């Protein structure tokens, strides 16, 4: 791996080089914000299969990866996109029809799992989920876990506090570390070597980035080294973690990118509608994703007005007057 130097590449090449069939993958963002959607669509276009996905609440991106049948296993806390789909539709269908193996954790547990991976320890403790079915019921049976060297033999482990009653706590739950083969995040600003500046909430992007063997960064603005290093206290991820940097304006579209653009309520609502019907969903997949050469091509087909509609106010970071009430596809 090249630690230093220019890591800029194309999205096609970054996905081709690093995201293989059977790859263990995590994506950044949260529900309808800063999902690396351009990369998600490129994975779908390249027909990658049998991905093992790790997610906390990476709503839209995960639903599209699951819907397009790129994944066979999913470890997740929440499959939803807020008011657009309280339960993501393709996710729900795939689980109900048993087209995908699923393991349930909580958001904090998944975040700690990434942190453990980033720290290089096998597990971390929390008090979350004691007494619940999240501990008792396993989606991946023991035999499946034992056969797969990439999975820990146990989902979660309860442990009596080994320090006695220290901190007045009797028991903790240990969550196993996650080290994805690849993490893909979309950030506002990155430089040629892969230093990253995330604006607004970081969600769990930093932990996910540092837990992975390979980190692919897509960014709104690709900058010179000096630019980001001039205000280092605003940067979260140093270049030493990065393997590929790709300049993809609107790379989170149709999800939001704080200070750049809002989510597109027309796209997200239309998607949620089409996802309900297999035929309509397949025509969406065919026409909106597979028949487009690139993310640029997808954006061009929507027209400039759509992107202007979601353009963020510089001060607020979102589109103040965006009509979110009755978004209609024209």
């Amino acid at each position, binding site marked *: 791996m090249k630690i230093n130097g220019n890591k800029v590449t194309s999205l096609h090449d970054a996905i081709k080089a690093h995201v293989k069939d059977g790859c263990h993958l995590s994506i950044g963002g949260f529900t309808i914000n800063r999902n690396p959607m351009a990369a998600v669509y490129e994975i779908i276009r390249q027909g990658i299969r049998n991905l093992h996905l790790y997610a906390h609440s990476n709503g839209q991106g995960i639903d599209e990866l699951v819907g397009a049948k790129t994944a066979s296993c999913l470890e997740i806390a929440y*499959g939803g996109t807020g008011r657009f789909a309280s339960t993501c539709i393709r996710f729900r269908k795939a689980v109900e029809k048993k087209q995908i193996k699923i393991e349930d954790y909580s958001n904090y547990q998944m975040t700690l799992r990434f942190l453990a991976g980033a720290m290089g320890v096998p597990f971390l403790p929390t008090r*979350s989920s*004691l007494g*619940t079915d999240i501990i008792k019921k396993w989606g991946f049976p023991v035999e499946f876990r034992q056969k797969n060297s990439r999975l820990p033999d146990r989902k979660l482990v309860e442990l009596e506090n080994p320090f006695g009653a220290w901190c007045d706590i009797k028991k903790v739950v240990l969550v196993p570390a996650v080290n994805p083969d690849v993490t893909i995040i979309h950030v506002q600003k990155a430089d040629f070597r892969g230093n990253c500046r995330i604006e607004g*909430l*970081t*969600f769990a992007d930093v932990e996910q980035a540092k837990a992975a063997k390979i980190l692919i960064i897509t960014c709104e603005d690709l900058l010179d080294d000096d630019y980001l290093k001039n205000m280092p206290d605003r940067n979260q991820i140093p270049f030493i973690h990065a393997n590929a940097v790709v300049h993809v304006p609107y790379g989170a579209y149709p999800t939001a990118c704080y200070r750049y653009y809002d989510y597109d309520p027309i796209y997200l609502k239309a998607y949620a509608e089409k996802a309900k019907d297999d035929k309509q969903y397949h025509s969406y997949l065919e026409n909106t994703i597979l028949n487009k050469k690139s993310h640029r091509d997808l954006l061009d087909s929507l027209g400039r007005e759509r992107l202007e509609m979601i353009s963020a106010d510089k001060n607020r970071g979102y589109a103040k007057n965006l009509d979110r*009430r009755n978004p209609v596809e024209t």
Partner: protein
Amino acid sequence: MDYTLKEMMTIVAAREIRNSDIVFCGTGISMLAAMAAKNINAPQSVIFFETGAIDSRLEDLPLAVGDSRIMYQTSSNGGLLDSFATMQNRFTRKHIVGILGAAQIDIYGNLNSTVIGDYDEPEVRFSGSGGACDVASFVSRTIIFMKQEKRKFKKRLDYLTSPGYLNGPDGREKAGLPKGGPDRVITDMGIMGFDDHTRQMFLKGYYPGITPELILENMEFKIDTSRAKEVMAPTPDELELLREKCDPLHLIL
């Protein structure tokens, strides 16, 4: 005065929030209730989100807890690690009230937001825990929004996603959970509390035009109704502030 059941539920929840509370909220009506409390009866309360935003200005109503609208003018924009640590932290957790919803609830306020049917062969799959199990495990009290339906108030949950009092008064302690648990359940018919000794749900109030009997008919398990009183309807002031300050575009109401 005319009002909708959604408005009634939001205001009933808002009344439960105090000035000293830090309010964790999710998407939809729970976010609206937190905003209503800030605008009506608890202006000093603090709203925070699992995604890491604390004391967001909320000039516009967010449609998800990952909405950029929660990132504008906050005390700090952190991440998931920060927010859940704040709830698990032995000092800050005492000030936090969580607002949750679920597909099923039982008499001890345990919640299911994962599946209907068998976990391995689900009839219906829901979103899953998200941060709900974390919140229910950690914080000092929770307010739960539910629809008053027999299939939702269950003798036995299909899956226990988020802990209430588990199986009785010492359920949480035996399991190793911190003190806390559900404080109120707010439905489209009334409001429930939890008995200090048995930790079982009881009827605290019913809305104008609703009877305790009607509420019992819409639950699979029986609860004590002897303490129930009629809940005060929303006042014109409450309604005006809710409609004009919190959700003027009717995104949720």
